């Protein structure tokens, strides 16, 4: 009986180390209570012996004398495993945070800014991206963006996520599974087209929006992502691109591309019925406020997660992100306070988003003080873009996708070239591995030119790609809803629903 008790102890001690072991040990304990019966006396120890022996052999090194080299190798493996665990945990959390930025972050932010009759349709546009882009990414998007190919596109090696397994791809991230990297990048691929929906809010057909954004994702986003982040990409700073553009988390890839495309959409589709004479104030700044706060928190995954690891660079990017957002709130609100006499809630949250956009390319390259400067400048600059420049040219960029993302991304990309420091992130190295200056203030004046090249390429690709795709979709199925449908509201005309059913009696 003492033997059985000892074995039971061993069972409880190693409980949980094997999959399903816990249930077995409890069953064993119950069996033990009926141990009077001779056959049952044997089943528990046998079971325990078989299972615990495999546990014991799995956990420790061979009992035979192992040399110091073998033990050091085992220790190194454990250290590497520990680092991988930490990195992967952070990256999975970051992926979730970035997805949250689209839904409900962006969905709420945009949803609150439109008129009540269009709230669901607007949220649905972001949500649709969460679903549809995932499928497109899995089928071919990831392969085009991150497969090995030429300077502009990846190949088709990863079609249907072929060879995207749990082993790392050291070119991208040596300590996390490639699948983690793929799913993290997917969240970026989701939010980028969702940002564009802000430009054509309240007047685009749902079917046309789907077709347009799927094509845009394949033909504009994926090549842009490949050029900046993919193997062999023309602008890839870490993998030896010809015009290395410093873009830590997607200032050009995500914000310039979507923001400029948004402007093209707004110009091509034309103004909303009644704009600008008819009043179209946001139906719920409260929803937008909640969305903006979710965006701020989620952005830590967007920027700090772009370190692709959980170490010091992630911290640096996290801090820079936060400081950039905060300074931009101050910048925008101050400008508004001075110009209008009152700082508005909508202004504050818009400033916050503008700062986050601008710090996106810079997050992992600049220090906290530079982040404050970048944020403040972006806040004031985007305020000017959205209030002065927009009314000057008269385009109906309904939710200021260009004014905030296009403009904020452009200025952020340029300021990254100014403020990048190699001590934060030694992205450029000479032949002997020594760090070279990153930004202008550090002595690399050339970088501003490279940043400009990256920005220009993003602008050109966005403009040309968007125009072509818009034209094609327009010819195939038409882009805008009819005037009657627009007046009725997209919730009813496109989706057969109402957002709020509050006024009807019980």
């Amino acid at each position, binding site marked *: 009986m003492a033997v059985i008790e000892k074995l039971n102890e061993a069972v409880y001690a190693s409980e949980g180390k094997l999959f399903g072991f816990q249930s077995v040990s409890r069953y064993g304990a119950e069996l033990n209570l009926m141990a009077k019966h001779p056959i049952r006396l044997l089943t528990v120890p046998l079971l325990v012996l078989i299972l615990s022996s495999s546990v014991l052999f799995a956990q420790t090194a061979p009992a035979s004398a192992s040399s110091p080299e073998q033990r050091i190798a085992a220790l190194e493996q454990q250290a590497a495993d520990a680092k991988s665990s930490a990195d992967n945990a952070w990256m999975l959390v970051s992926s979730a945070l970035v997805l949250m930025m689209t839904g409900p972050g962006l969905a709420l932010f945009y949803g609150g800014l439109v008129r009540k009759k269009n709230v669901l349709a607007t949220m649905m546009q972001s949500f649709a991206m969460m679903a549809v882009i995932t499928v497109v990414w899995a089928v071919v998007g990831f392969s085009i963006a991150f497969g090995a190919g030429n300077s502009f596109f990846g190949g088709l090696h990863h079609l249907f996520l072929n060879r995207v397994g749990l082993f790392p791809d050291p070119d991208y991230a040596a300590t996390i599974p490639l699948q983690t990297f793929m799913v993290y990048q997917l969240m970026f691929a989701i939010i980028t087209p969702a940002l564009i929906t802000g430009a054509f809010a309240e007047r685009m057909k749902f079917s046309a929006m789907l077709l347009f954004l799927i094509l845009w994702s394949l033909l504009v986003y994926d090549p842009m992502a490949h050029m900046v982040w993919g193997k062999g990409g023309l602008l890839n700073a870490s993998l030896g691109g010809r015009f290395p553009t410093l873009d830590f988390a997607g200032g050009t890839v995500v914000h310039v591309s979507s923001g400029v495309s948004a402007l093209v959409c707004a110009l091509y589709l034309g103004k909303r019925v009644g704009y*600008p004479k008819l*009043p179209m*104030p*946001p139906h719920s*700044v409260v929803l937008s406020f909640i969305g903006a706060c979710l965006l701020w928190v989620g952005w830590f995954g967007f920027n700090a997660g772009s370190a692709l690891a959980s170490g010091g660079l992630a911290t640096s990017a996290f801090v820079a992100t936060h400081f950039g957002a905060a300074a931009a709130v101050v910048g925008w609100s101050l400008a508004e306070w001075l110009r*209008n006499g*009152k700082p*508005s809630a*909508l*202004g504050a949250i*818009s400033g916050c988003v503008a700062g986050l956009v601008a710090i996106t390319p810079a997050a992992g390259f600049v220090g906290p003080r530079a982040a404050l400067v970048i944020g403040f400048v972006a806040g004031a600059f985007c*305020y000017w873009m*959205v*209030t*002065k420049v*927009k*009314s000057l040219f008269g385009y109906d960029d309904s939710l*200021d996708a260009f004014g905030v993302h296009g403009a904020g991304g452009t200025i952020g990309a340029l300021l990254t070239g100014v403020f990048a420091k190699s001590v934060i992130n030694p992205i450029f190295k000479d032949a002997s591995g020594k760090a070279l200056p990153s930004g202008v203030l550090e002595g690399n004046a050339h970088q501003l030119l490279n940043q400009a090249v990256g920005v220009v390429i993003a602008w050109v690709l966005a403009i040309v790609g968007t125009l072509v795709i818009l034209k094609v979709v327009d010819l195939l199925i038409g882009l805008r809803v009819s005037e009657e449908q627009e007046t009725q509201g997209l919730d009813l005309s496109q989706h057969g629903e109402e957002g709020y059913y509050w006024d009807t009696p019980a």
Partner: protein
Amino acid sequence: MTMTKIEAIIQTSKLEAVKEALHEIGVEGMTVLEVRGHGRQKGHTEVYRGREYTVDLIPKIKIEIVLADDIVERSVQAIVTAARTGKIGDGKIFITHVDDAIRIRNDERGESAL
């Protein structure tokens, strides 16, 4: 005896005061609506992302009561005293004649239905 309808459009902040004043003189039935409108009162401007919106339909409260003629003047005085601030935007009272009133519960008609 004939019946009279009083429609009083007042500031939203004066609803409680007017209700109490009417209860004090014994008037209990009333219908309250949330309305928007303006007489000579100017609205205000709101600014969203640099765009100005003039809000000139101002929220008001409209109270409708149907009374026997003999208490109409007292009711009007009660409303006016409770609702007046002396500024533009205090509102207006309109008085009309009511042909009949019916209590749905038991078919009573005329003044006894009030």
